[in-house]
């Protein structure tokens, strides 16, 4: 226990690490707050600069950016009605009406304190649950890992975009990109077209920066002339009374956030929307109706999306399976730093787990401090003209892609994926599943081969194994359910069930 505490406090006691967490959180808040610049983009560009670093400082920066970025999106949602990140979509519903009434300061203050509460609960659950989950994960069979990873990609594909078909396409494309290079087991060439440069595969960083940095910046060029809206902000630090009043609700919505965040494939955006819905159902008599500036409508999504951060680290650290695009990028970075997230991480390197938990708590505290101060600077940065911002992001994307391997080939890959990602987004395909696919490609490939070899290449036996193990059966059922839920049959059934229930209510 004392050992755990020691590791927990590493980032608190080392001034350099402390500074990096602060810097990361600060950068995360501001990047997350600029509309169109998502936390995924911030993490993907900034992470590429940390590869030469030791693992501790690099993790400090990443954890800070993630925590700050999830919170930062709420700022512009409240002030401009433009969510800075998908996880802040629900925040805008009641946050912006509050700002229109001239209560932007109070809204920001309340959302900051509530994000802090949510973040704290999420990390608490992570610290308590992760050791148990990882022990449980040791009993997982290769087929369970394979099913879980496929489930993660399918969930991201079906929930974040307009159609499951496009999500599956994007995920499969990612899996294929991840398979390029020499096969890790037999060293056979895959998709190398005889080029030695492709033996090591396509740089994950190049794909990531292309898809999240360049393609997002190009999309932003459509809105180059949109002027920033100015707001006057009064009191920020909320009263104790207000915090106390919404604390019970925030505890409920935090639990929603942690659970949704911990499911592979679902992250802060879905957690926030579900929490908003929950708040609407349990708040019988809001002072102000929902959608017109109800404080409950602000508290619920903000606690949930920050609680989801701690939740998302659970499958990431214990199973090696990312919950969403940001955690996929963080896992990729951990691989490059020689860490291997999964059940063995907790056994072989428990210090890493406690170190990350400590850095998360620290980032949460910095989020509260930076959130309640520096509003003037904030409005200045958000008002920065896009004509300056976008070239800078593109420049950093190139530098980031180049810096990892000092290779100009990586820059060309990044540009290719940037253009391709832009077209994918334009035509309604999600890019999140692509990066999840790239990260999970090796895990699925290896576990598939292990599973099928252990069943002597017999598909029937593998299938029987799935049917006789409760865990595999649940995972398999979930995968099948996602497909069925997208078919006309299911929508028809649901519509019939829905009308029957509505009739039942009416009686």
């Amino acid at each position, binding site marked *: 226990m004392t050992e755990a505490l020691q590791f927990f406090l590493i980032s608190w006691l080392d001034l350099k690490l402390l500074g990096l967490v602060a810097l990361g959180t600060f950068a995360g808040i501001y990047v997350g707050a600029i509309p169109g610049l998502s936390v995924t983009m911030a993490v993907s560009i900034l992470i590429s600069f940390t590869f030469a670093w030791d693992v501790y400082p690099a993790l400090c920066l990443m954890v800070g950016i993630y925590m700050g970025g999830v919170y930062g999106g709420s700022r512009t949602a409240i002030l401009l009605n433009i969510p800075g990140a998908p996880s802040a979509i629900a925040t805008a519903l009641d946050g912006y009406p509050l700002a229109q009434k001239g209560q932007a300061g109070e809204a920001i203050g309340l959302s900051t304190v509530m994000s802090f509460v949510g973040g704290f609960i999420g990390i608490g659950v992570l610290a308590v649950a992760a050791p148990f989950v990882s022990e449980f994960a040791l009993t997982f069979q290769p087929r369970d890992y394979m099913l879980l990873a496929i489930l993660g990609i399918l969930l991201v594909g079906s929930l974040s975009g*307009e159609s499951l078909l496009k999500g599956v*396409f994007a995920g499969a494309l990612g899996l*294929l990109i991840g398979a390029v290079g020499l096969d890790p087991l037999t060293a056979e060439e895959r998709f190398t077209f005889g080029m030695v440069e492709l033996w090591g595969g396509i740089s994950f960083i190049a794909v990531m920066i292309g898809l999240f940095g360049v393609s997002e910046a*190009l999309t932003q060029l459509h809105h180059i002339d949109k002027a920033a809206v100015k707001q006057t902000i009064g009191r920020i630090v909320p009263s104790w009374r207000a915090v106390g009043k919404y604390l019970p609700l925030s505890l409920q919505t935090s639990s929603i956030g942690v659970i949704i965040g911990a499911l592979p494939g679902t992250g802060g955006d879905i957690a926030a929307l579900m929490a908003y819905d929950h708040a609407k159902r349990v708040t019988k008599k809001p002072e102000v109706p929902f959608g017109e500036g109800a404080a409950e409508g602000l508290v619920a999504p903000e606690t949930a999306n920050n609680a989801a951060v701690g939740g998302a680290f659970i499958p990431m650290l214990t199973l090696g399976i990312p919950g969403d695009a940001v955690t996929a990028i963080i896992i990729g970075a951990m691989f490059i730093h020689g860490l291997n997230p999964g059940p063995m991480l907790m056994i072989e390197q428990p210090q890493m787990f406690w170190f990350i938990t400590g850095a998360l708590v620290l980032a949460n505290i910095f989020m509260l401090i930076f959130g309640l101060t520096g509003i003037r600077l904030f409005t200045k940065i958000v008002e920065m003209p896009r004509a*300056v911002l976008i070239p800078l992001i593109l420049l950093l994307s190139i*530098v980031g892609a180049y810096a990892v391997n000092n290779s100009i080939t990586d820059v060309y890959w990044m540009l290719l994926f940037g253009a391709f990602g832009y077209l994918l987004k334009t035509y309604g395909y999600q890019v999140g599943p692509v990066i999840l696919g790239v990260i999970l490609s090796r895990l699925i490939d290896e576990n598939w081969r292990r599973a099928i070899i252990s069943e002597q290449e017999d598909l029937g036996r593998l299938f029987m194994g799935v049917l006789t193990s409760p865990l595999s059966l649940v995972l398999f059922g979930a995968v099948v359910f996602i497909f069925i839920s997208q078919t006309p049959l299911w929508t028809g059934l649901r519509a019939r069930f829905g009308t029957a229930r509505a009739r039942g209510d009416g009686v």
Partner: protein
Amino acid sequence: MHDPSKKMPGETAFAVVLVGLSGFLLWQAILISGFEALSSPGAFPMAAAFAMLVTSVAILIKTLRLRERMALRFFTDVAPPVILAMFAMMLGYALLLKPLGFLPTSLLFLTLSIFALRRRGLLWSFGVSLASLALVYVIFRLVFTVLMPSGLVPEGEILAWLGNLFSGGDTQ
């Protein structure tokens, strides 16, 4: 921007390209190790490419069925000149990075792109670019110690000279 009930300009062509890409990749995946075993190196890529082909064909059929078109044009709404120009400038940056070096290429790139996007005078763009580049240089080159090609500017010597200046020259 994308509305699934209406067709966007270029959407059908894009869907066709994706089908072609998927087919090509499936063919390449089959070439890896054929159908020799379920655990062969080619099995997983084949499955992924097959999933791509099936979904891309289904997407193409859905796209072809869409009757209503969006009132948009490819070269004004999907790939307007500003996006094509910025992309071309990034390609130019990648080409010039090695021969010219990081500082001159970046300055050129920032000045031209900010000027093109903002249209507030070349001198203003140059000033803003110089200031932002200085910031980028300090953060990424000096603090994060990212190595970039130096090219025309003898960056290493200048840094060494500055270092000597601050250490009082007593190292010599």
